[in-house]
């Protein structure tokens, strides 16, 4: 019998970022790849929109809306004219995942990943303490890959980009 090879490609959007996923089944092992596809201007998504989407998704699947009252209550103490959830915007700058398993027991499996998330938090800090400390933006990046193309796309913040200090 001929060996079975199959590949499934999928384009989808996660937190407002267009991604491309590929699953490939080979004779013995398999490969999974997740990379961002060509991006249009990505504006990200607010936490409020994200919760609403989850609610809709939950209703579509289970018939009832997901219970998000705990999150709402937690934020009620800082409630202002506009919901703070609508001010927290999340942008997924990079989501890269590559898993390769050749099916051999002795050989090591490969797992590489890179994620870069920017969170705009303007207005999240209560006005009462904004005079002392305010956080407008948080960037988090985690990676274990050495692939230059991926790292370039991640636009990882470099110390010299932020501070006028000697390059590290």
């Amino acid at each position, binding site marked *: 019998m001929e060996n079975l090879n199959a590949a499934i490609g999928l384009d989808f959007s996660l937190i407002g970022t267009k991604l491309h996923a590929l699953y490939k089944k080979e004779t013995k092992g398999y490969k999974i790849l997740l990379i961002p596809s060509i991006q249009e201007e990505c504006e990200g998504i607010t936490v409020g929109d994200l919760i609403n989407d989850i609610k809709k998704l939950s209703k579509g699947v289970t018939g009832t809306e997901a219970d998000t009252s705990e999150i709402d209550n937690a934020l009620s103490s800082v409630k202002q004219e506009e919901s703070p959830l609508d001010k927290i915007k999340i942008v997924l700058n990079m989501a890269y995942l590559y898993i390769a398993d050749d099916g051999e027991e002795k050989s090591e499996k*490969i797992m590489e990943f890179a994620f870069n998330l920017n969170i705009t938090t303007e207005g999240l800090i209560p006005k009462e303490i904004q005079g002392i400390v305010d956080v407008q933006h948080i*960037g988090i990046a985690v990676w274990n890959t050495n692939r230059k193309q991926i790292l370039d796309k991640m636009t990882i913040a470099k110390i010299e980009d*932020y501070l*006028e*200090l000697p390059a590290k």
Partner: protein
Amino acid sequence: MKGKNYISCNLTVEGTVLSMPAQLFLEMEHQQICLAGSVTTDNIQLKKLVGKISKEAEKLLAPCMDKLEFLLPEKVSFYYKTNQCVLCFCLGEKKVALSWQGKEVSLLCGIQTAAKPKKNGIDDYISMIAGELGVKELFFAFQSGKTYGLSKMAEYVLGEGKKWELPSPLLSYKLLFYGAFSFSQDTVIGKALDALFKIKNVQLDLFVAVDNGVMGMVRIPMRAGDAVKAKELYIGLEIKQEKVRFMLRGSFEISLLQGVEFQVGCELSNQGFFIEAFAKMSQPKHLFHTFSIGDTCLSIGYSNGLSFQMFSNLYMGKIKMFGALGITVVLEGMTIDLLSAAVTDVTLPVFVESVLGKPISGLEEFDFIQLLGLPFQHKDTLPNSSNLDKEHIVSWFNNAITEKSFALDAAKVQTEPFLDGVIIVDKKRMRHYFLNKQGKVQLQAQFYYAVKDMSLGDYTITKGIFLCGTIRLFQKIEIQALFSLSEEAGVIAYACVRNFDLGFLKISASGLGAGKDNPLKQLPATSVVRQFVNDNEKGAVFFLRAGKSETSFYFDGKLVLLGLFEMAARILYTKGLIAVDVRFALGSSIWAVLQLKANYQSFSSGQFSFRLVIDCTGLEKNLRQVQKKIDDAINQLRDKINSAKRKLTEAQRHVDELYGEINSLDRKIENCKNDIRKAKWYQFWIPIAKGAEIAAYEVAKVGIYAAIGVAKAALEVAKQVVALGGKIGEGVLKAVNAAIDVTLNLFFVRYISLEANLSSTTKNFKAEIEFVALGKTYHYKTEIGHTALAKDPAAALGDNMSKTMEGDLKNIENGSFKSNRRRYQHQEYTIAQHKERLEAGMQQLDACTRMMCKMQKAYVKECKTPMAEYQEMNVAYQQAVNQVAGVLEVADRTTDFETMNQAVSMLEQEMQEKKDVVRDTSYMPVKEAVTDYKEALDLLKMIQEGMEHTEQQAAEMEKHSKQIEKQEANYRKECVKQGVMPEGDMVKVINNTEEIMYQEFPVTRNRKEFINLSREKLIHQYLDHARDELQGEPTENIKKMRTRAVKGKYENRL
């Protein structure tokens, strides 16, 4: 899961602190944490800032707030990484950076000057004045440690993209002022320069450094001219402890010599002068024919004497050479301060090709000498070998080496593509490497000797000695060496002579000690030498390390000269422990072993043993003193023996003692059997060769019996002559008496053994000797005390032996001496049987010699190289053959046959003359004895022929050994010519060997006294095992021989 073996992450936070824009950055990469942050005050007023924290404080501090305004920086940044902290402030036009790492602190302050002050502060007036004088930027620096942390801070203070390149003479100063002058026409000096010299827009940098002395230095950026382009020019003046020094440094490019940069340095002081010219070339410049020149530097100075230093890189075809020389001439004469040379791999064909510019075909065969580098033996090769970027190579090299003293600093390394590899030069140590196209790196063959620290061109020279390289001679002898001497690392010496065999000279690993392998393989990876030890190659090794932290010494090697003289030693000294194994051997009969294991600091725990064995069988060596005593005793004995019968009996006993030789030969046969048991499966020829040796010893045993047979026949004649008493004339009796005197004097030494056992508690020496004299085997074993031996060793040994013999000698004198007759078990044979056995023995010997030769030739024919142990095998077999000759020679000496023949002819003549002889029955025994004696003379003749025959066999073996060597040399040449080393079919070799064995030792042959190798089960097993391992099959003929029905039961020897 495999990915990068660590995870990197970073976190950035942007926000405000007290309404001031702030940033925080945290990063973890390569398992290092980096933390940085900044706060920008953005021209906020101090009053307002304090108010944000506390309104009360604002009110309280309101009166002095305006005066403290200057303390508020526009921006504060901090940075932390690998223990280094940098804190930066931006105070208006001033930028201040503070750096500390451990106890070292550096401060850098920069002021941008302006013509008009913004405020009325003192520093603003300074700025204004400086500005008027043409100072565009003004810097102040301070350092507490040896190195400025300025380079990192400078980018912040000087601005993006600018680098602080301080002239090196300034680096040792603690306080530093630096001003960048720009004399434009709107400044006072600019106007003056314009008015006086018509020079417009002059720019220069001025440095003033203060510490124990003062140094001023000006950097003048020169304008590019048509013919000469100067890059930067420094002019400096230093006043330090009443010494004044003027210096000038700069680099130029001459348009006529594109790609060559000349760096010039000059110093003049009241102590001396110094001038240096360094030509730095981007590409080697062609000189003539195949010669080109690379970076070259010349330096001349005068301080305590006239000094001259230079280095140059010379290219000659496929060879690159580097040479450096430094000498100082003083009143006493000339001293060499620096001497260094390095060269890429040189072989004779490459050398000739490089000189002539074209290859000469056929020269490869004369490639008898090669000078090569010392390769690093780490398994890693340069990844991504097409990337020959300097940083990439240095990073890989530093990861691959295991000893930090070889680590490279990318800033002090120069890489240069050469042939199909890259030359790497470590300018920090004046050390040269070569990276080949396979991505393997080696130290070039080089030599370095420097007596003082100095700098030359872009090289840093440190006091020390370094040399390394590999010399290969005749493609066979390979000698590797490395020697390093420096104040920091002490002495490191390593030498390895790879196993080689020139026939007359053989050098190899000693094979002594518990670990037969090269123990350098057990060295930790961090050891300097470990990097150069090839696990797969063996040889004599020497290693020494003597430094502040470690002292160790190791030697392991064996030298065999002419196959006779052998010296092997293994000495290991490390961490105060010493272990010594030494073995000395002369031929196979004399050898000595010395073993010592001790703690160097405390010898009380040491153990020492020594053993010397001299095997004298087959030799005829007289112990002169002892023999003299024996001779005296024999003379006295002769006087005491009144009866001729008694004399005959004694002579008979002496002859019987020859049976003792059979025991000695049996011991040698046992040794051969032990050697067979030790053979590995792939040494399938060892059982056959040792079997041939056994066969030779068995022939020797036959020879002993024959010798005794001849001697006995002679003695029988003598006995019967004496028995006739008065019936025989005095002349016959005298002749017989003279003949048996020879038998009485039969004397030979079997072996001498000296043994010493020394430790803290016991000190004694043992001596043993076994010799045959007076028809008796003497075996003396004596123990000698340490004191007696230390006082007079010769006397101690001699007196002891004399004392032991004294009893017997006295007994000889008084006639009561009895020899230990009939101690040995033996067989009795007739003369006819002796003849038949001796004849068969000679045939056996012929078969052995033929088989040895054929077997080795078959191996060489197939494998194009002789089997590894062929020389040892041949020497051992030759010795066994010589043993046969030795015992046959003894037969010739058992009696004075010439005198005995005269006696017999006199006897026969006398008997013919006497008429009553025919009837007198008392003459019958003497007649029979004479008949037997005559037959024994035939045997003696056979023995004498046998001696010649064995000598021929020995000569044939020697001739064969030479033929094998010649064949090997021819095949080697052929292989070199064809560029391949053919691998032989070992199964074919095994089958050929077995068939040769069947040819020379037919399976039908079955004699009780001689081994038949073809019927020995153990030999079959070895051959089968080797075939199984190689997955081979025996030939049909072999199968047939194995199963062939033969008469008689054969008794296996092995």
